[in-house]
């Protein structure tokens, strides 16, 4: 959690009115199914760029999952160095808009006590025990100007929310968006699963709920 301790009241005021910039929804195959800005006049990328962004993010997300440090269970008590080191896993990338630091989530330790290769962690010697919690992958990415929060549902759909870096309670917004999606997209009998979302009711409710929050 990043806490802003330098925000002035002026700053807070401007943030209040423009906290959520835009939303992207990516299906479980990495395809862009929804993209929307919540402020008129926001600079838009081309459709193709959004598709590339969705695909790229999907890939990076998968990579952050696969590079999640994998702890052999036997060493969790005997080898504290490895354990503490791997919980701070992060990687740095540089983007045109500034330095971004995607933070990989806390790694899941192997809880397979019978793993014969537990002390020589290689990718083949380890697998996440299913269905216990798998590595979640990239959860947020932050620059000076914005924060991208990724919420992946248990069904594999990803919600990407671009917000002001100082905005609080993003999880509440995310949860509400998921509920609206479940209602107005998934329950629409004419919406085809995994296809682009063109549901007017979803647009309407999303827009009015976000406006109501401000």
């Amino acid at each position, binding site marked *: 959690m990043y806490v802003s301790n330098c925000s002035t009241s002026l700053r807070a005021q401007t943030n209040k009115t423009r906290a959520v910039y835009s939303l992207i929804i990516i299906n*479980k195959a990495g395809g862009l199914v929804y993209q929307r800005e919540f402020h008129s006049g926001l600079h838009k990328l081309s459709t193709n760029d959004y598709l590339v962004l969705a695909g790229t993010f999907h890939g990076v997300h*998968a*990579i952050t999952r*696969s590079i999640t440090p994998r702890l052999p269970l036997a060493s969790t008590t005997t080898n504290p160095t490895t354990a503490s080191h791997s919980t701070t896993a992060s990687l740095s990338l540089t983007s045109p808009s500034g330095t971004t630091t995607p933070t990989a989530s806390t790694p899941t330790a192997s809880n397979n006590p019978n793993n014969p290769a537990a002390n020589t962690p290689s*990718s083949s010697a380890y697998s996440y025990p*299913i*269905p*216990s*919690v*798998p590595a979640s992958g990239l959860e947020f990415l932050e620059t000076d100007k914005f924060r991208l929060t990724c919420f992946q*549902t*248990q*069904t594999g*759909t990803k919600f990407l929310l671009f917000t002001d870096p100082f905005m609080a309670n993003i999880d509440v917004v995310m*949860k509400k968006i*998921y*509920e609206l*999606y*479940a*209602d107005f997209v*998934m*329950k629409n009998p004419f919406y085809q*699963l995994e296809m682009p979302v063109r549901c007017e009711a979803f647009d309407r409710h999303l827009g009015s709920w976000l406006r109501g929050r401000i």
Partner: protein
Amino acid sequence: MSSTTKTARIGEELWKTRVDKVNAELVTLTYGTIVAQLCHDYDGDYTEVNKQLDKMGYNIGLRLIEDFLARSNVGRCANFRETADMVAKVGFKMFLNISPTVTNWTSDNNQFSLIFEENPLADFVELPDDGRAQDELWFSNILCGVLRGALEMVQMQIDAHFVSDVLRGDDTTEMRVSLVRYIEDEMPPDEE
């Protein structure tokens, strides 16, 4: 079993606070009409009716799971026993206000039964008196499909079918659910 009661409490809470209610008879009558129409359309071919109901349920399940997850806010189940509890005490509670009993586990923990003490879909129903419906039609078969579709979306391939139904004159209504496999991440391992 404290985890079981905890799951039950989640279900109760959701039912009380997060669920829009609808007249039960509307549901019963709508579902009854669908089944009767299918029996008519397929000319009393009950095997086909069962199949169609399962298919319809499957398509519902694929969508309904998102509603379940978005509202319940529950995390991933650690094992199939937890899944069974979640299905019975939160899933069925949320959508039908019933909590079937989970029982008859196999020793490998991959198969269980759901016993339905009550079944809102089947209120007022008497199966057709043609000598076959009693043996062939699984009236509430849509529920099997719903379960199959919903669990498939959270990476579990299961098989679900009814083994008895009070509508047929059996003592209980029992659905048998078996885990076929966990669906692994679709990404090939050498793509890293």
